[in-house]
C-alpha cells in the first residue's frame, strides 16, 4: 500500500485575525495582477506587443538590462567581498551608502546622476570637453539601471559570502593557493548560487527601472525609451498596448521569482 503524505493546513497557534489580515495583505498584491490579466485584449495581444515601437522598447530594455547586470557583477562582486571579508574604519558608512539606492526614490537617483554626469555635471563637464556626452544616451540608461540594481547584487552576494564563511578559504591558502587563486577556485564556486540570485534580482530591477531612466536618460525611441517608459507613454494613446506590454513585464517578473526563490524551496 502506498503511503500518502498529506500537507495539512494548520494555523500553527497564531490568532485567526492575524491570518485574516495576512490574507488582505496578500490580496492587495494578487488582485491587481489578476485584474491586469483580465484587461488584456487577448485576440490582439500578439499584434500589440510586436508593434515596431514595442519591439524597439523591448529590444532596448533587454540590451541595457543585460549590460547593466554585467556591470553590476563586475563592480558588485569586489564590493561584496570587501564588505564581507575586510575590516576598516568607515565600513558601516560605506555599506549604508552602497545600499542607499534601495530606499532612494529613483527620480532622486536620476537627478543625482544628472548632477554627476550631466552636461554641466561634476564629471560631465570635463567629459564634455573630451567630447563624451553621457546624459540622454543609451549609456545613461545603463548607468541609471546599474545605480538602482547594484545594491541587490551586493546584498545577496554579501549574505552568501558570510554564510559560506572563510574556513574553506583558509584551508585553500594553507594548500598553497594565492589569494587570487583562492578567490577563483574556492570562493566564487562556493557562492555561485548567491551570485546567480543576486544577478537575476539585479536584472529584474534593471528591467523595471523607470524614474531614474526618465530623469537621466529621457525617452527617445530606440535610444533611451525602455519598456517601462514605453508602457507609460502608450497608456495615453493606446491603453490596450500598455496593458499587453505590462503583462509581458509581469511574466518576466514571475519567471525571475521562480528562478531565485523556487530553487531555495526545493532544498
Amino acid at each position, binding site marked *: 500500500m502506498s503511503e500518502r503524505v498529506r500537507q495539512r493546513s494548520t494555523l500553527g497557534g497564531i490568532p485567526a485575525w492575524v491570518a485574516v489580515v495576512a490574507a488582505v495583505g496578500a490580496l492587495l498584491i494578487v488582485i491587481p495582477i489578476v485584474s491586469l490579466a483580465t484587461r488584456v485584449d487577448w485576440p490582439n495581444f500578439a499584434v500589440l506587443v510586436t508593434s515596431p515601437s514595442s519591439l524597439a522598447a523591448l529590444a532596448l530594455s533587454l540590451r541595457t538590462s543585460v549590460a547593466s547586470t554585467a556591470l553590476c557583477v563586475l563592480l558588485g562582486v569586489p564590493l561584496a567581498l570587501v564588505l564581507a571579508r575586510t575590516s576598516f574604519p568607515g565600513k558601516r558608512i560605506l555599506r549604508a551608502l552602497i545600499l542607499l539606492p534601495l530606499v532612494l526614490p529613483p527620480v532622486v537617483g536620476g537627478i543625482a546622476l544628472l548632477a554627476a554626469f550631466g552636461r554641466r555635471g561634476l564629471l560631465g563637464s570635463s567629459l564634455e570637453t573630451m567630447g563624451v556626452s553621457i546624459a540622454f544616451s543609451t549609456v545613461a540608461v545603463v548607468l541609471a539601471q546599474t545605480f538602482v540594481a547594484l545594491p541587490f547584487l551586493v546584498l545577496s552576494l554579501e549574505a552568501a559570502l558570510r554564510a559560506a564563511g572563510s574556513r574553506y578559504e*583558509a584551508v585553500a591558502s*594553507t*594548500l*598553497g*593557493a*594565492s*589569494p587570487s*587563486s583562492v578567490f577563483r577556485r574556492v570562493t566564487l564556486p*562556493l557562492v*555561485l548560487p548567491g551570485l546567480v540570485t543576486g544577478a537575476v534580482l539585479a536584472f529584474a530591477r534593471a528591467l523595471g527601472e523607470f524614474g531614474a531612466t526618465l530623469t537621466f536618460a529621457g525617452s527617445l525611441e530606440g535610444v533611451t525609451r525602455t519598456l517601462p517608459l514605453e508602457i507609460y507613454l502608450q497608456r495615453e494613446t493606446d491603453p490596450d498596448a500598455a496593458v499587453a506590454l505590462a503583462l509581458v513585464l509581469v511574466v518576466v517578473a514571475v519567471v525571475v521569482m521562480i528562478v531565485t526563490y523556487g530553487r531555495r524551496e526545493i532544498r
Partner: protein
Amino acid sequence: MSLDVHAVVEPDRLDVRFSLDEGETLAVLGPNGAGKSTLLDVLAGLLRPDSAHVRLGDTTLVSTGHDARDVWVSPHSRGVALLAQEALLFPHLTVRDNVAFGPRGAGRDRGEARRIAERWLERVDATGLADRRPRRLSGGQAQRVAVARALATEPKLLLLDEPFGALDAGVAPAMRRLLSEVLAERTVVMVTHDPLDALALADRVIVLDGGRIVEQGAAREVLLNPQTEFTRLLTFGLGAV
C-alpha cells in the same frame, strides 16, 4: 625541516617558545582554551601574532615585535599544511580534484596533478572514492581524503588540529594507524587533548595551560612520568598503568 618558535598572542594570552628537530612529531597537549589552536593559526599564518619569531629550516616565516625588520610570509607561500578537526573538503570538487588542488596551485599541469592525487589517494586507501563528491563521504573517509590533500602539497611542516576529534570511536584507530605511517619522516605539530594520541604518534610533547608551557620533553617521559600535578591530571595517570 627543523622548527624554531617563539610566539606571543596577547588577546589569547599565548606565550610559548619551543623548537623541534627535522622529522620529529610534536604533540601540543592541554585543556580547551589553553591556546593550542591559536598556536597552530600562528604557524599556518592565519593569525598575526603580536610578537613572534618562527623559523622553518633556513626560512624565517614570521618576525615581528623585534627591533629588526618585520617578516611575514603569507600562508600560501609557507609550505605549511593544516589538517583541521573537520575535513573541510571543497564541496564543489570531486575527491580527486580536492587532492589535486594543491599540486594544481603549485603549477603542475592537469595530468600531473591528477597522478599525484591518485598516488596519495592510494596511500590513504581511498582510491575507490576518487570520483565522489565530499557530501557522499562518511566522516572517516573525508578525513582520510583530507590527509591525502594536505600531504599532496609536500608540506615542509604539517599541522594537525585534533585529527580524531570529529571521528567516531570506531574509525579513530584506523586513522591513528594511517597517521603513524605517513607522519614518520615528517616535521609535524599536532594539537590534541588526548594523551593516548600523543603517546602513539609523538616524539616530543609540550603541555600548555593558559597559554604557557608548563612541561615539555620526550613524549614517553612527559606522559608516563609527569613532573607537574597539572600534567598528571591531564594524562589521567597514564604513568600509573
